[in-house]
């Protein structure tokens, strides 16, 4: 089964020996996604929402079908799906088009120490500009997030920004209760689903957040396409920050613009058509595999890697040490050995891992580290690759130990 999954990814034909443990940075793309992108350029090729000729109609249809597919992926309506470049852009749109419009001096923005810089810097910046507060839920002793901290501060907060899965520790945050409580207070919530979207089902009806963001390239889809879900009830509170074609219906003779409806109001200019169609195909890839298969396979990998890592001497695992509520993302600190050196030695043996602060410096620092080594797995990985990784890691550590 897993062999068949791997064979769907052409990158492994170009690099048959590659062990890719950096899927939290970006996932590889299955052939079907690459074919969908090529198909657009070879057979459709027109712009969307503009021409009246048949190719333009077909392109528009394919593009809007893609929107429907992407909406169904998170159980939203197509009108609630805004296309952007990536998660960072999605969050910036909310920060500037929504939060900035309402943030006042003394307001409180609530978040967590586990956030990716994407779901952190915009608020930090806004808070500075407006003299507002920005506070983050800390870690607990077991390396998991202190969710209770959020509960205690919900009433004072004007906005809650939170990730579903930490890109550093792999922890899956249990957010049902906090979202329910925030809902009762009409507190707007943004969920950063970038790290979650390829590994667990998302449902904006079951977890009724106001905003949800994810990137195509982390869900086996193309780069350059991201998704911002905005709940219908919040759409009128979101202001466009990019102006231009398509987001406006017309400009009257007195220079008064008549803005388009959401989601188009927030999609100025020609969108990433091929990438959007490619993302819909990536979602079809996930659907064909099915969540039970994906979750079971990745859980096995996670349990296997955890057992191996926890028995390694001199290796510190950052974050949750039990396979419960976590993904197969493993950040390691090895006292006396620099992660960049390890990453380079692993690379020489054909193993791709990440080293550094993984765009989550506040979280890395909260764990008392400056830089870590991260191995992040996805559906195309296999147990045998974990064995090789552990062997090479051990060799590299003893080689570098002073």
């Amino acid at each position, binding site marked *: 089964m897993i062999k068949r999954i791997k064979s769907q990814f052409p990158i492994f034909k170009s690099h048959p020996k590659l062990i890719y443990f950096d899927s939290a940075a970006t996932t590889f793309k299955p052939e079907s996604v690459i074919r969908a992108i090529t198909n657009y350029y070879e057979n459709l090729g027109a712009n969307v929402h503009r021409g009246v000729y048949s190719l333009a109609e077909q392109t528009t249809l394919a593009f809007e079908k893609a929107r429907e597919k992407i909406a169904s992926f998170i159980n939203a309506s197509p009108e609630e799906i805004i296309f952007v470049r990536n998660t960072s852009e999605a969050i910036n749109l909310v920060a500037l088009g929504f939060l900035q419009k309402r943030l006042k001096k003394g307001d409180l923005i609530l978040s967590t120490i586990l956030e990716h810089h994407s779901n952190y810097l915009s608020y930090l910046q806004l808070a500075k500009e407006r003299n507002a507060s920005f506070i983050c839920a800390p870690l607990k002793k077991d390396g998991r997030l202190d969710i209770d901290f959020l509960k205690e501060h919900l009433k004072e907060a004007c906005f809650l920004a939170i990730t579903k899965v930490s890109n550093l520790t792999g922890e899956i945050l249990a957010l049902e209760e906090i979202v329910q409580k925030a809902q009762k207070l009409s507190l707007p919530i943004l969920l950063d689903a970038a790290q979650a979207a390829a590994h667990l089902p998302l449902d904006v009806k079951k977890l009724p957040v106001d905003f949800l963001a994810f990137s195509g390239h982390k869900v086996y889809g193309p780069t350059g396409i991201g998704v911002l879900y905005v709940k219908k009830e919040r759409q009128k509170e979101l202001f466009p920050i990019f102006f231009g074609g398509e987001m406006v219906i017309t400009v009257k003779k007195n220079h008064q613009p008549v803005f388009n409806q959401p989601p188009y109001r927030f999609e100025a200019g020609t969108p990433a058509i091929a990438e959007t169609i490619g993302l819909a195909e990536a979602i079809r890839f996930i659907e064909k595999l099915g969540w039970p298969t994906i979750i079971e396979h990745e859980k096995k990998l996670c349990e296997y890697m955890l057992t191996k890592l926890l028995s390694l001497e001199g290796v510190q695992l950052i974050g949750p040490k039990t396979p419960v509520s976590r993904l197969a993302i493993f950040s390691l600190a090895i006292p006396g050995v*620099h992660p960049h*050196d390890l990453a380079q030695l692993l690379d020489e043996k054909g193993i791709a891992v990440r080293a550094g*602060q993984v765009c989550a410096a506040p979280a890395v620092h909260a764990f008392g580290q400056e*830089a870590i080594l991260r191995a992040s797995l996805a559906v195309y990985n296999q147990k045998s690759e974990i064995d090789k990784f552990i062997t090479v890691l051990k060799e590299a550590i003893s080689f*570098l130990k002073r």
Partner: protein
Amino acid sequence: MFYREKILEIYKNPRHFESLATFNLEAEKENPFCGDRLKVRIKLKNGLIEKIGFTGEGCVLTIVGASMAGDLVLGQRVEKVATITLQDILRSLKLQKILPSREKCLTLGLTTLKEAYLQNKRAISRKEENESEFFSDNQGFPRR
């Protein structure tokens, strides 16, 4: 490729890594890419670099790069620091090139040395303005 015996040997026995108690110049620099941080203190005698002392932690390339940068300027006039480049360090290690992402590691020591030199230059121009005796060879750079 970069972790040949020679490089690892320097890493395990780094040069110019000590904390100097008396010194004239001091600077600290960070590699924001990974958070590695080096501090350097330089002791001068008659305008020549008599001693270099790095402190801090870093990856193999950071430690080796600092060691080699130290070798290249020790005993030289302090102005020499400004002329040393990444290429000089690569040449001293008999390397053609390294991954662009690791260049900052290899040059962190050099950057720190340059910062110390620049501070010295700025201080000298200040000294000329103020005619103060702030810097002299037998006087330690004040700790901050």
